[in-house]
């Protein structure tokens, strides 16, 4: 009897019998090339840093200030993106209306234009003598070359990620969740906070992570809009442009802690925050 029972077909384990081995090898080689392109610079960067150089960077107040500014402004950007991006993503995801596709395309513009162009565009409106910038300038508030300018720039280049994540989540959510809640006597606002937000929470966190990651890596638009105070990405560029890749010490005086070393610290911080967000997301959303 046992011999009549067929063993179940196993798929995608080992080399599938439906594809010739040569084909699978060709796919593997191409995949390997891309994998090398993606991973080798990171490994090389870490290999080029030195424990001494990393220590030197950690003791440098300018390095610490730049790293802190990056974490601070990127975090603030994520917060703004969530506060403003969740309502926009919700509206775009929930309602069908004339011009919705057009609006959808508009919010994707920051993803497709060169970032120096984004910086110029921002400068034409938030610059000290431009329409909005001049109003704030009148009250002594500078929108360029300041933390506020950095955040405006970063919101422009990165908040789309939060909006799109929320929009997709709202679209995927069964609208009857909200209908059930309201039929039980809950107002639209109560329903939004007690039913909708908990349903799309994981996507909000994902959007915030992507926004944070994108914001912390921005250089081009910041060069134009808010070069000072320098966030880590600009600070690293300055070190590289001034002193090359590695640390530079002259007669005991540290001229540069090394672009490579600061870059490694930046990667460590980004990865740590990325992992932390992922952990929060998993805890909140459950498995």
């Amino acid at each position: 009897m046992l011999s009549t029972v067929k063993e179940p077909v196993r798929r995608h384990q080992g080399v599938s019998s439906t594809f010739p081995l040569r084909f699978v090898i060709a796919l593997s080689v191409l995949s390997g090339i891309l994998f090398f392109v993606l991973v080798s610079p990171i490994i090389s960067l870490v290999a080029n840093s030195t424990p001494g150089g990393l220590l030197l960077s950690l003791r440098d107040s300018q390095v610490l200030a730049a790293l802190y500014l990056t974490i601070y402004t990127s975090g603030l950007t994520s917060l703004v993106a969530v506060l403003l991006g969740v309502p926009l993503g919700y509206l775009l995801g929930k309602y069908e209306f004339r011009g919705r596709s057009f609006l959808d395309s508009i919010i994707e513009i920051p993803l497709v234009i060169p970032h120096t162009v984004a910086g110029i565009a921002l400068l034409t409106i938030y610059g000290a003598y431009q329409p909005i910038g001049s109003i704030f300038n009148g009250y002594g508030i500078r929108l360029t070359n300041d933390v506020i300018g950095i955040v405006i720039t970063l919101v422009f280049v990165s908040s789309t990620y939060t909006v799109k994540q929320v929009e997709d989540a709202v679209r995927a959510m069964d609208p009857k969740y909200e209908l059930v809640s309201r039929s039980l006597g809950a107002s639209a606002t109560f329903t939004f906070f007690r039913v909708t937000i908990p349903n799309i929470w994981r996507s909000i966190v994902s959007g915030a992570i992507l926004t944070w990651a994108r914001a912390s890596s921005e250089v081009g638009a910041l060069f134009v809009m808010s070069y000072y105070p320098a966030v880590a990405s600009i600070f690293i560029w300055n070190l590289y442009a001034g002193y090359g890749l590695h640390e530079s010490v002259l007669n005991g005086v540290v001229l540069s802690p090394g672009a490579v070393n600061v870059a490694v610290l930046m990667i460590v911080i980004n990865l740590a925050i990325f992992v932390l967000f992922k952990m929060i997301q998993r805890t909140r959303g459950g498995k």
Partner: protein
Amino acid sequence: MDGLVVENLSHSWKNFSLKDVQLSVGKGEYFVLLGPTGSGKTLLLEAIVGAYQPRNGRIIVEGEDVTNLPPERRKISYAPQNCLLFKNMKVRENVEYGLYAKGIPSDERRKTAEQVMQLVGIPHLAQRGTKTLSGGEQQRVSLARALAVQPKLILLDEPLSAVDSETKRTILEELRHIHEQTDVTMIHVTHDLWEAASLAGSIGVINAGKILQVGEPDVVLRDPTRNYPSVENIFKGIVVRRTSDLAEIDIGDNIVVDAITDRSGEVMLQIRPEDLIVSSTSVPSSARNDFPGTITEITDLGATVRLRIAGGKTFTAVITRQSFFEMQLNIGTPVHAICKTTSVHVL
């Protein structure tokens, strides 16, 4: 007073339209809206609960026109097909949700939730998360959540579509019990004839966005017209005597049917036409049901023949073509329709 009145309701959505829907459901009635998939029953339910504003028509709940009210002010609880329990809340929190939204104090909330959970039979689930519940348990929680806010009307959208047949039978029984206890007006949407026959005080048949027929279950389900399959041999009756599990059910016109059931009071029963044996004479046998009558209609079904046998009530029997010719049956031939108690399905 009517529990719900729908007046001239029309609405279009994509390529589908509700056309001039008229409906009246008595207060405290268990009304089943019966229709095939795509007939418009969910769209009608959504109009009643307030998911959208219909193009024309009025919706009146216990005398109050709610057409222009938002869902939260209609006092209509909606229990959707897939339950949609709030996953971020435990069972108790789900049940208390509506009361919480209305600002009811926590001790009062808890007391009401406990009463409702007791009624629905889920007090043991109170602290459970919703992700671990079975289909039947989810349905009970969904029902408890709808009941807790003491609505004027409860809308149940295909509540038994995703549960196995054993659970379905249990929940049917519970729904009947809960309705008796609460006396709340219920509208239950289904495409399942048996569900409709088991529960309904009255049935509305909907198809292609139109209400085709409204009436008592035995009348509606027997009617083969109006684009909906008929149910043969379905009768409303009253259990008049009982010996252990054997019940005698009076279906009117001096006909008493013996059946195995623990139900009492008013019931619906059905006998499949294939389960009726047709005999020219009354023969002594173990079958307890013998309905004498006369053949009034003969329909050739190919390998089988369908007979309509009238004798007070009209029964339908399906016999083989060979038997039909051997017995030399014809319109007007007196016959006996015979069946065992186990062939009588009490719904």
